[in-house]
C-alpha cells in the first residue's frame, strides 16, 4: 500500500508540474459551466437543483478524462521511464493502482472546483443537498470508470494520440450501451447481448445517483468495472512492458 501512495504522489505532482493541470481544470470548468448555463438552462428552469449540471458531466468526462489518462503509460513508454519504474522493487499492480489513484484524485480536485454551483443553488433556493451529494459521488465514480478504461488503453501504446482516441471510443461505447440505438440493434440480432449492454451502461448507473439513489448494486458495479480494467491494465503491462 505504501508503494501505491508513493507512485500516486509522484504522478499527481507530475500533473501540476506541467501546464496539463491548469489547462485541464480551466477547460473543464468553462465547458461544464457553459453547458450547464446555456444548453441546460440552469437559471431559466427556475428549479433549485443541479440536474442540468449532472446531465452534462458524463459527456464532459467522456471527452476530457482520456486526456488525463493518455499520458499515464504511453508517456512512460516513450520516455523509457517504464524501464526504470518497473525495475524498482514494486509490483506492476502497485504501479497501476498508484497511477490510477493519482488521476482519480486529480479528477476529484477538478470536480471539487465546481463548488460555486452548489453555493449558487443554495443561495437562490432550497435544494436537496443530499441529492446533490449523491450526484457528486456518481460523477466521481463515472470519472473513475472512464479513468480505468483510459489507463488500461494507454498501456497499449507509446503514442498518446492513439491512447486518447482509443479511450474516447471505448468510453463512448460504455456510455451509450443502454441507448435504444444500441439495444434495439442488439435485440434484433442477439438479444443476449442487448441485456448485457443494458447492464454495463455507465450512464444508466449514473442516473440513479443523480436522482439521489445510492444503491449497493451500483456501487458494486462501479467497483467491479474499475477493478476489471485495472486488472487488465496490469496484465497488459506484464505482457508487453518492454515492447
Amino acid at each position: 500500500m505504501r508503494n501505491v501512495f508513493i507512485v500516486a504522489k509522484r504522478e499527481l505532482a507530475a500533473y501540476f508540474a506541467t501546464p496539463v493541470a491548469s489547462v485541464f481544470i480551466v477547460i473543464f470548468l468553462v465547458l461544464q459551466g457553459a453547458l450547464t448555463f446555456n444548453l441546460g438552462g440552469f437559471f431559466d428552469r427556475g428549479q433549485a437543483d443541479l440536474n442540468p449540471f449532472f446531465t452534462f458531466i458524463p459527456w464532459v468526462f467522456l471527452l476530457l478524462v482520456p486526456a488525463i489518462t493518455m499520458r499515464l503509460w504511453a508517456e512512460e513508454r516513450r520516455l523509457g521511464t517504464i524501464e526504470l519504474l518497473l525495475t524498482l522493487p514494486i509490483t506492476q499492480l502497485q504501479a497501476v493502482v498508484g497511477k490510477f489513484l493519482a488521476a482519480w484524485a486529480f479528477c476529484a480536485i477538478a470536480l471539487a472546483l465546481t463548488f460555486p454551483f452548489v453555493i449558487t443553488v443554495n443561495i437562490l433556493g432550497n435544494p436537496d443537498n443530499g441529492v446533490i451529494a449523491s450526484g457528486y459521488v456518481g460523477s466521481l465514480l463515472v470519472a473513475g470508470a472512464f479513468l480505468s478504461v483510459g489507463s488500461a488503453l494507454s498501456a497499449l501504446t507509446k503514442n498518446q494520440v492513439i491512447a486518447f482516441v482509443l479511450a474516447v471510443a471505448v468510453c463512448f461505447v460504455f456510455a451509450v450501451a443502454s441507448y435504444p440505438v444500441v439495444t434495439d440493434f442488439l435485440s434484433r440480432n442477439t438479444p443476449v447481448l442487448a441485456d448485457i449492454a443494458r447492464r454495463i451502461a455507465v450512464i444508466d448507473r449514473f442516473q440513479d445517483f443523480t436522482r439521489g439513489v445510492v444503491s449497493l448494486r451500483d456501487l458494486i458495479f462501479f467497483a467491479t468495472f474499475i477493478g476489471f480494467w485495472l486488472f487488465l491494465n496490469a496484465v497488459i503491462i506484464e505482457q508487453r512492458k518492454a515492447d
Partner: protein
Amino acid sequence: MPAEGEPVLIEIAALTKRFGGFTAVDDVSFSVARGEVLGFLGPNGAGKSTTMRMLAGFMIPTSGVARICGHDVQADGIAARRALGFLPEGAPTYPEMTVGGFLTFCAKVRGFGRKELAQRIDHAVTLTRLESVMLQPVETLSKGFKRRVGLAQALLHDPPVLVLDEPTDGLDPNQKHEVRALIAQMAPHKAIVISTHILEEVDAVCSRAIIIAAGRIVADETPQDLMGRHPSGRLEDVFRQLTTEVA
C-alpha cells in the same frame, strides 16, 4: 571465471530472447561473482541491452533464467530488484521532476524512512557530484548530468549488484574518468556489469570482458587475454575480428 571464494551474485543460464523469427539473444550463460567488473561488449544490435533488460527482470526471456543474489528475476522479482541497481539504456528519468525530487521518489520506493533517506540521497549525490543541480528539473540538465542522475538512482540503496547500460555515454573525458574511478572504488564489494562501446574503458575498469555478437557470446576472458588474441595486441582489432566473423 568468477573469482575464488567470492559469492556468485549474478547468474544467467541459457538466456534466449526471440522477437518473432529474430533471435536477439541466443543461449547466453555467464555468472559474475562479488569483486568482478564485467565489461559487456558488442556491436549495436548484438543483444547487449536485451540481455541486461532480461537480467533486470524488465524483459521476459523466451527461455532461460537470470538470478540476482539467488533470486529468480521473474519468479521472485521484488527480492531480486531490491538487490539490484540498474541504469537502463539512455538513463531515462522523469523530465519534469527536480533531481532531488526524483531521487527522493526512488529512495522512498526503496523503502527508506526520513532520516536514512536523507543520508542515502546525500551519499549518492556526493558520489555522482550532483550537489549543484539538486533543485533543477531533470529536463533542463545536460546529457552528462542526466546520466549521473540515473547513476545516482542506481547507487542509492548501495546494492550488491549493479547493472549499468552504457554508464559513460555522453560524458566528457573528465566525467568519464570520475565514473570509472567510482566503479573501480565500488568494485571489491559488488558484482558489476557494464555495457560499453568504449574499448579503453574495458582495459581501465573491467576485470573480465564478454564480447557478444549476433546474440551469442564469442569471447569471455580477461581484457589481457583478449588483447593477446591479435598480433597487434590492441583490443580494437580483437573486437573487429571477433564480431565481424559472425555478423
